[in-house]
């Protein structure tokens, strides 16, 4: 009686969220699919003829496409590595007994609140600029040559900036997970003369697996479409060295207001993102259950 009632009630409760998201997903998706097979350039008013796969072909055969694809993977992978690796380390550190633990956490949390464009601009102009930036001054102080970050290490520089933004997020989640670690288990392991490394590998890491999974999933969603940071710093260059798929769509299509090709690029990006999600879920999805 009550379970049937609550079953249909449950469906009704879901209705607003699901229907809204359905509309939000379907309408742009359908429009994008529609435009992707048209020859539609905003600046060239005309017939908008149907051209079939031409937009896709053009987008995919662009020599920049392969490089952007790998850059996207590198970007996501690099940031994940730094934020999770750094996050685990920081979390363990912050878990120790230290003075002013709350204030330290405050400081570590701060970068997450800063607007991506602001962080990118600050890093670009005040730190990485090879003439006026702080790193340049430090290099000269130590008698070394200032490094031109955005010309020599464009993708790495973007990875550094994005990692700085996301490190607090990862640290916080991992810290709370660590704080729920069963102390008794740890002590028992010590009694069995387990060293700090094996304690780490066999007790801490498995416990963290769920938190790590959550971090990976959320970050990946956001990292796949990094745009503002690239726009503000390297503009995708030099060449295509720091262009990811999202930025490629921008330069190849939006910059020329070629709506048809931008749509085709968008569909390609969706397919790639879904593939990545499927792979991720296969790899670590089990960790979320329970």
């Amino acid at each position, binding site marked *: 009686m009550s379970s049937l009632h*609550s079953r249909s*009630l*449950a469906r009704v*409760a*879901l209705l*607003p*969220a699901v229907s*809204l*998201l359905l509309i*939000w*997903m379907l*309408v*742009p998706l359908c*429009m*994008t699919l529609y*435009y992707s097979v048209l020859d539609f350039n905003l600046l060239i008013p005309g017939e908008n003829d149907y051209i079939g796969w031409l937009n896709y072909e053009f987008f995919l055969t662009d020599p920049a496409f392969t490089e952007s694809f790998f850059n996207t993977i590198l970007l996501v992978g690099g940031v994940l590595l730094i934020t999770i690796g750094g996050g685990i380390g920081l979390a363990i*550190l912050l878990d*120790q*007994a*230290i003075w*002013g633990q709350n204030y330290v*956490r*405050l*400081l*570590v949390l*701060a*970068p*997450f*609140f800063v*607007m*991506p*464009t*602001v962080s990118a*601009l600050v*890093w670009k*102009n*005040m*730190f990485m600029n090879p003439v006026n930036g702080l790193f340049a001054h430090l290099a000269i102080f130590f008698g070394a040559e200032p490094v031109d970050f955005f010309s020599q290490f464009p993708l790495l520089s973007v990875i550094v900036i994005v990692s700085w933004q996301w*490190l607090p*997020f990862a640290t*916080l*989640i991992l810290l*709370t*997970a660590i704080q*729920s670690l069963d102390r008794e288990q740890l002590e028992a392991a010590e009694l069995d003369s387990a060293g700090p490394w094996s304690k780490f590998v066999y007790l801490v890491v498995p416990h963290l697996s769920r*938190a790590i999974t*959550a971090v990976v999933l959320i970050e990946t*969603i956001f990292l796949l*479409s990094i745009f*503002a940071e690239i726009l503000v710093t390297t503009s995708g260059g030099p060449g295509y060295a720091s262009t990811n798929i*999202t930025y490629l769509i921008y330069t190849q299509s939006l910059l020329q*207001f070629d*709506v048809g090709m*931008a749509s085709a690029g968008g569909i390609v*990006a*969706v397919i790639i*993102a*879904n593939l990545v*999600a499927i792979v991720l*879920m296969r790899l670590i999805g089990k960790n979320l259950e329970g």
Partner: protein
Amino acid sequence: MQKTQSKIIYSVLAWSIAFLIFFPILWTVLTSFKTEAEAISSSPSLFMFDWTLVNYEDVLSRSPYFLHFTNSIIIAVGSSLIGLLIAIPAAWSMAFAQTDKTKHLLMWMLSTKMLPPVGVLIPIYLIFRDFGLLDTRLGLVIVMTLINLPIIVWMLFTYFKEIPKDILESARVDGASLGQEIVYVLMPIALPGIASTLLLNIILAWNEAFWTLILTAADSAPLTAFIASYSSPEGLFYAKLSAASAMAIAPILVMGWFSQKQLVRGLSFGAVK
């Protein structure tokens, strides 16, 4: 003895790293009080310079900061609250009336975030134009709600799952209706999680720098547009940019700090056992 020694070492280490992480923000705030010439000088100093408020004056007289500020608040808080309103029933349903489709539903919701905004820019712009939503706060609230809804639902779902079913069932047995169940039983327990979800979303909506730039003009432009007007004008601008940045991130930084505990509780995603 051992303990104090390790406490000292860890404290030093932790504070150094925290300082390094926080440094860019500190540097920005400090630069906002320097003159432009000082800001790009080849021997920058940390505290020893002529402090001045001229950048803040310039920025305030050049742009309607408070208009942007109000817009940011309305858009961020509004979309988060509406999102919560829609998401709480959905998350309740998924957490307590779980079916085998539930996980797929969750993944599908997350997948709606996978279409990069650059790809749908023009279609959305056209829709907004036709509905008269361009440069309106309502239009932006709608967009922000929709793009963050999956995150809100997901966070609430994992937090609700921590709550033992028995509490809700006993309320039902006592004759509570669905509404009463949610409001009087679920929410008090879930309040920390709901609060931190709300806060995280306010942060995400506050910092969103794509739709807020494309769909606004003069009336509804939030702080992200305010920053965009300082990004690379002609002439020296580091100090002014710092002042503008400080003014753009200060509100959210302050709010985030005051609610840090809530944030931590909710962000843990039920990973805390």
